[in-house]
């Protein structure tokens, strides 16, 4: 029996700290009373930022290695994804601070932190047992968060729908895992290589479970209803960090466990990517509600990111990571704007955004940045991300897939610009918009400004980020 060593502790440093922070939040939830509880949001966001800095300083992995008897891989891939999740949690905590009935509840922040902990484990899990537990640790807090506004029927419906779909797909995933174990006699991802007779059938079962997490068509039905009903910051978290966690598992599982079947699963995922992009974009065209529009747009983005997975090359993996960083910043900003606007104006309809450029020029500008980045326009992060993904596809011979992606980006551009048209060109009829300002509280102003600047920065100075993503990608080959 071996003892614990410092590498093991470093490998789960963010998880340990997240747990400590979660307990602190629950503690202060009891100690602080009334209005003071709003500070729980600052505590969560600040604490998570501190965790991110501490892990960046002392929690860096060296050579990739297995820890805890092969339960986890301690490598740059997991490290990069953990930073992505921490960033998502910080922004989400800030956005949660001014949502009525959410901001003064310690449980909400504690659940957010637990979900982040689960995602961190998903990103580094190298064993089926660990992986499944990590997925459940992520999902269960998110079910509660999606249905957190118990008085609101739509939120309750959102939570319940998410729970039902999640339970169903997780059962299918578990069935796939159990067959995998039954055929190979091991649960370790690294020892499947070469000993798997029935890869394709099992790939289908596993794709169902992960397809739900990344909201790929045809496992996307929960997404629009859940995003529309759940509290807006939670919807933002679901569409970014939760999706990134799904991709982390997809990359590690398929590239370390089934590299010899790359042709088969790449073909399955290529079909999935095509359908996901096309259906997501076409359905987004008809949406009248901003949160539903963002839901379909997030489905379409899952399709673009899948292109990078299909490429299954170093560039492909690096492009997936880069895309996820850019997409996380952009989509969190978009949902943050929707949360700020919905809170002040009491509506999520796109039509009610008319005159926003006069009501709140700052918010309108943040929206311009976020939506143009979603549409993939230079000089924003979304442009570089799309270029990288399509390059990876062309480089590995998936030219038709890249073409489908480009065509879809053009469809996407149309509905993003339609929203911006309402924001900038339409006026509130017969009213003086300046009498209806959209107040931005400090947490929103801080988060939105930071995100908008970050979107611009990774779009212009993309080399350092891409280098980090490439370094992480190397761990899979």
């Amino acid at each position, binding site marked *: 029996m071996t003892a614990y060593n410092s590498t093991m502790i470093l490998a789960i440093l963010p998880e340990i700290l997240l747990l400590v922070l979660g307990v602190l939040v629950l503690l202060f939830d009891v100690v602080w009373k009334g209005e003071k509880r709003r500070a729980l949001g600052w505590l969560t966001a600040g604490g998570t930022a501190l965790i991110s800095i501490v892990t960046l300083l002392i929690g860096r992995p060296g050579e990739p290695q297995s820890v805890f008897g092969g339960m986890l891989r301690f490598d740059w891939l997991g490290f990069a994804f953990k930073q992505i999740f921490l960033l998502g949690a910080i922004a989400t905590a800030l956005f949660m601070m001014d949502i009525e009935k959410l901001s003064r509840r310690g*449980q909400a922040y504690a659940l957010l932190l637990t979900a982040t902990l689960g995602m961190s*484990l998903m990103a580094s899990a190298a064993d089926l047992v*660990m992986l499944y537990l*990590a997925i459940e*640790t992520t999902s269960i807090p998110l079910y*509660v968060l999606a249905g957190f506004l*118990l008085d609101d029927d739509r939120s309750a419906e959102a939570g319940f729908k998410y729970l039902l779909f999640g339970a169903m797909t997780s059962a299918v995933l578990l069935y796939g895992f159990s067959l995998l174990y039954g055929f190979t*006699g091991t649960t370790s991802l690294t020892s499947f290589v070469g000993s798997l*007779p029935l890869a394709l059938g099992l790939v289908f079962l596993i794709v169902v479970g992960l397809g739900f997490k990344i909201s790929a068509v045809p496992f996307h039905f929960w997404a629009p209803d859940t995003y529309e009903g759940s509290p807006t910051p939670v919807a933002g978290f679901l569409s970014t960090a939760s999706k990134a966690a799904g991709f982390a598992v997809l990359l590690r599982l398929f590239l370390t466990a089934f590299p010899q079947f790359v042709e088969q699963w790449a073909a399955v995922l290529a079909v999935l990517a095509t359908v996901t992009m096309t259906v997501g974009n076409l359905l987004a065209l008809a949406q009248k509600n901003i949160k539903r529009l963002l839901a379909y747009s997030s489905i379409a983005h899952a399709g673009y990111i899948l292109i990078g997975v299909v490429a299954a090359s170093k560039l492909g993996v690096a492009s997936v990571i880069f895309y996820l960083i850019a997409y996380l910043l952009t989509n969190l900003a978009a949902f943050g704007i929707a949360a700020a606007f919905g809170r002040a104006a009491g509506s999520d309809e796109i039509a009610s955004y008319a005159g926003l450029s006069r009501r709140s020029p700052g918010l309108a500008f943040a929206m311009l940045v976020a939506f143009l980045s979603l549409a993939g326009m230079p000089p924003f992060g979304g442009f570089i991300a799309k270029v990288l993904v399509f390059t990876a596809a062309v480089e590995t011979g998936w030219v038709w897939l890249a073409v489908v992606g480009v065509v879809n980006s053009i469809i996407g551009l149309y509905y993003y610009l339609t929203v911006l048209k309402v924001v900038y060109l339409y006026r509130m009829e017969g009213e003086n918009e300046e009498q209806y300002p959209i107040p931005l509280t400090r947490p929103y102003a801080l988060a939105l400004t930071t995100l908008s600047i970050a979107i611009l920065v990774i779009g212009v100075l993309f080399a350092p980020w891409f280098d980090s993503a490439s370094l992480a990608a190397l761990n899979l080959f």
Partner: protein
Amino acid sequence: MDASQIIFGLTALLIIFSALRVVTTRNMVHAALWLIVTLLGVTVLYALLQANFLAVVQVVVYVGAIAILFIFAIMLTRREMRDGGPQLNKGWPLAALISLAVFGGLLALLYNAPVSERLAASLEGQDTLGALGQALVSPDAYVLPFEVASVLLLAALIGAVYVALNKKQESDK
């Protein structure tokens, strides 16, 4: 076909039948009782696999505690023991079709599976309980999943308490 295979087949049939009855019966208490039958069937499977400790735990925790709790919850919260709503919705033919397709796919998958040479080692006469305990706390085995499971349960508890007690807190204010 030897005895254990016959026992397995009969138990599997019983499990499937009672699981079906859980969702088809209209009486809630009957559904809970059928659930107990299903869980007992799983116990038999554990015993067949010589996982004695798991079999005992299955009876104590699932049959003894959870199922009984179900029955109490049903009796204490519902005046009407029968569920009067429709049991099928519009989409059922499609759902049935997809289920059948998945079943067929799995059947084909398993039928084509090469018979594994690696049979699991027999557990007969071994100290499975001791080995299980060691594995759960050994840093080389399952200590991390074990700890994560407790975090998961904590989060589930917080969520459940929030969902269940929220209404009460609101009225207290």
